[in-house]
């Protein structure tokens, strides 16, 4: 298995040119070739979801993908969430406030799962969020506070959006409201 493939990956807005064995998983490339160790590996068979990243905006298991499969995609990992100066995102802040993490091992997977889901379904109810939380495994929290954190983040984002709309000076062109 000495074959090496040249792979171009786009991760968190940066381009990386890699020479890697084709059997190397996306999770291993992110963690060990790019040093983005925030993405964790918990089962290597697609059940636990600790390795969840966004591939073109959609949550995906990085342990079930070969890096070579996602050459033309935009990959986002947990390292993309906080501000460059280290300030936590609203979602991360909600996890902290609701004690949605204990050991923190599953946390990056849940954060990316929620980041992808809320972008698609900003109006999600708590029950719908709970169903999505059931995609990944956590051994510490019992899931309740993870669900609370994501639900609270969704509420805050909706409130912020509403506030922005309320304070907008003029309806934008083409608005159907």
């Amino acid at each position, binding site marked *: *298995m*000495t074959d090496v493939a040249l792979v171009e990956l786009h991760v968190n807005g940066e381009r990386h040119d890699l020479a890697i*064995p084709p*059997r*190397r998983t996306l999770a291993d490339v992110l*963690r*060990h070739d790019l*040093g*983005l*160790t*925030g*993405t*964790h*590996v*918990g*089962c*290597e*068979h697609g*059940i*636990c979801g*600790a390795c969840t990243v966004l591939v073109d905006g959609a949550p995906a298991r990085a342990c079930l993908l070969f890096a070579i499969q996602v050459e033309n995609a935009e990959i986002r*990992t*947990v*390292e993309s*969430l*906080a501000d460059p100066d*280290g300030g*936590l995102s609203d979602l*991360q802040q909600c*996890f*902290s*406030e609701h*004690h949605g*993490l*204990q*050991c*923190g*091992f*599953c*946390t*990056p997977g849940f*954060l990316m799962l929620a980041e992808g889901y809320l972008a698609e379904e900003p109006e999600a109810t708590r029950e719908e969020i*709970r*169903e999505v*939380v*059931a*995609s*990944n*495994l*956590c*051994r*510490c*929290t*019992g*899931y*309740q*506070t*993870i*669900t609370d954190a994501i639900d609270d983040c969704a509420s805050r984002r909706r409130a912020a959006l509403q506030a922005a709309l309320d304070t907008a000076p003029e309806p934008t062109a083409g608005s159907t409201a």
Partner: protein
Amino acid sequence: MGEPGFRPDGTWVGADVPRREDPRLLAGRGRFVDDITLPRMLHAAFVRSTEAHARVTAVDLSEVREVPGVVAAFDAADLGLADITALLDRPAEEFTPTSMPVLARDKVRYVGEPLAVVVATDPYAAEDGVEAAVVEYDPLDPVVTEAAALAAAGTPVHDEAPGNVLVDVSLFATEGIDEVFAAASASAGDVVVTVEANTGRQNALPLETRGVVADWDDRDEQLLVRTCTQVPHQVRTVLARCAGLDEKQVRVTVPDMGGGFGQKCVVGREEIAAAAAARRLRRPVKWIEDRREALTASFLAREQHYTARAAFSADGRILALDTDVVCDMGAYSCYPFTAGIEPLMASAEMPGVYRVPAYRVRGRAVTTNKAPTAPYRGVSRPQYVMVMERLMERAARELGLDAVEVRRRNVITEFPYRGINNVTYDPGSYLESLDLCEQVLRDEGWLSRSGRDRDGRMIGIGFSCFSERTGYGSGAFAQRKMQVVPGFDISQITMDLDGTVTVTTGTLSHGQSHETTFAQIVADRLGIGYDKVKIVQGDTDRITYGWGSFASRSVTIGGSAAAAASVKLGDQLRSIAAHLAGVDIDSTRLDGRGGVRAGDHTYPFAELADVAYLRAHLLPKDVGPGLTATASFDVGGDGTFSNATHGCVVALDPGTGGVEILRYVCVEDCGVAIHPRVVEGQARGGIAQGIAGALFEQVTYDELGQPLAPSFMEYKVPTAAEIPDVRIEHLETPCAFTADGAKGAGEGGTIGAPAAVLNAVNDALRHTGVELDATPIPRAAIFAALSLEEAS
């Protein structure tokens, strides 16, 4: 608002402050063991037994060494490591010593047992190398079940234990207990009830698997072992002994840890082998357990079989308890706890929260050809509590009494209480928690709901009452007669020039938030911000000695040691301030704002530290330079008891036998909560693990000892779809002898859940006459019971 870093009300303890751990973990900047990469690092993988029980006739690694990328392959003879041996100081009739080789030699005892370590330039190549190993076996009949172990018909698992029994203790045996049972049987009103219960083998299942990065450092002449363990000093000791090194030649450090739950509080074989390989090769070696290894070849727990009977008076008071418990400990005794960990815990503690006047127990550990057992969150308590709670329910049924009322008549209400098990219980809220739990469910309207819901599902309600002994000091552990006796903790605190402090602890957080809670404890003692306190844990070169974190011991014992060290440091600061101000030390006090008030002067800590380090000539004669203090803490008596009552409402689906938990209420009392939200997190997470054991998770084997649950497809870990929201109510009975009145909170949730869920299921099945006494509760049995009812 007070000044930044100070709380207006002066205390950090009891406040839900932001966790110090959160920012790095949320940003993906934690440092777990697999996140560590060193120059020239190699990767290890293990050749593992494919047989459950066999003599090994050949291990041929010659092809392995030809695989591209493989640097070396070592079997037991190559590494020549001493065995891992854990002992009890008990007579031969009670304990049979056995050893666990780091790598199996002439015999294998479970599928997955490590036989050789392959080291390669990357983990993929290491696994390629494992594939090329050739091992020849002469198979023996596997001993897969408790019954087969006790029958002892074939070749025993260990030659030293021809009956396959490693521990066999008979304890207490209250005088006249047989007469009590005889009289109850003969009496018209009294009853004798029996429960035979089996609990399934489980995996503690930290989401981060085990792992190690080991490196020999020529400059330090030291093997630096970074590993995710709950017990770094014990790993150091065992590694030094196995490899023939001085203890100072081994440094064990623990990075961020993705859970442990007991599985990581024993010394594993793989970290020893990987470290030995690193020393041999003079290159860093990393081993990260994969999930299949974790599910099949790691440490397991909880497979127990109880035969229990209890006599009750006509008015529902327990008269006597007689139990036989057999624990299937798998192939080896774990270090440091031994195969006695489960049977000794069950035997010592089973009467639990109830006033049991007569008690007899026999506890046995049998050895089988399955992966060995380690402690798992709660250790035996989820099991014996389940049996006790079944006995309560059964007695209530036979006596025609309400099961909650029967508990009410039996729980301990006067403290301190000296139990029949020779343990003194410190004050708790056994009756109060039961009353409140029932009240909450009544107020929510659940108690009036029974029978079928609108979907035709059967509704049932179950309770469980329990206490959990925490704060096991050396004296309490010594009663178990382990040759290695855990208990105390040592803490050292140092103040730097700027008035901030660094505190070491021998305990080790792996999700429990010690960087936050210990900082709260210390900050209150010194009157500084909790952000001015740095906690150092998990480093054998920086911490004198420690026992790590298990048995809910950290805050009670480690927190008390940190508090004591902080008080000593505060006294040093006051001595210096008194001298500078020319007043007596009794005229000084910590001002709660990062300084000392001495007479009319206020000395900020930084000013006193400046004297202690940079102008030592100004120090009083009896105070040496520097600002550091060390204190230890141990528990002299029997420890302290947290307690709780759990209430659970379930719905059973007659179409599938499925169980849905509609409501879960936990009324817990862990004394003073240092950080209430952390306590709630521990309770919720523990309850989730208890529910997992009650309904879903089981490590199973076929008749040849082949594991049948090697992936998450078979080992069913519950998700947010199965685990309900939990309502938590707090009661607070402070502990009299820990620093802040805290008891332990780490394990309780797990302990109460199986009993509550099982009782609720049985309540829902009440009309069928079927009672189930096994976990995980077999869905097929629920389906069958409800089908019978449908058919009739």
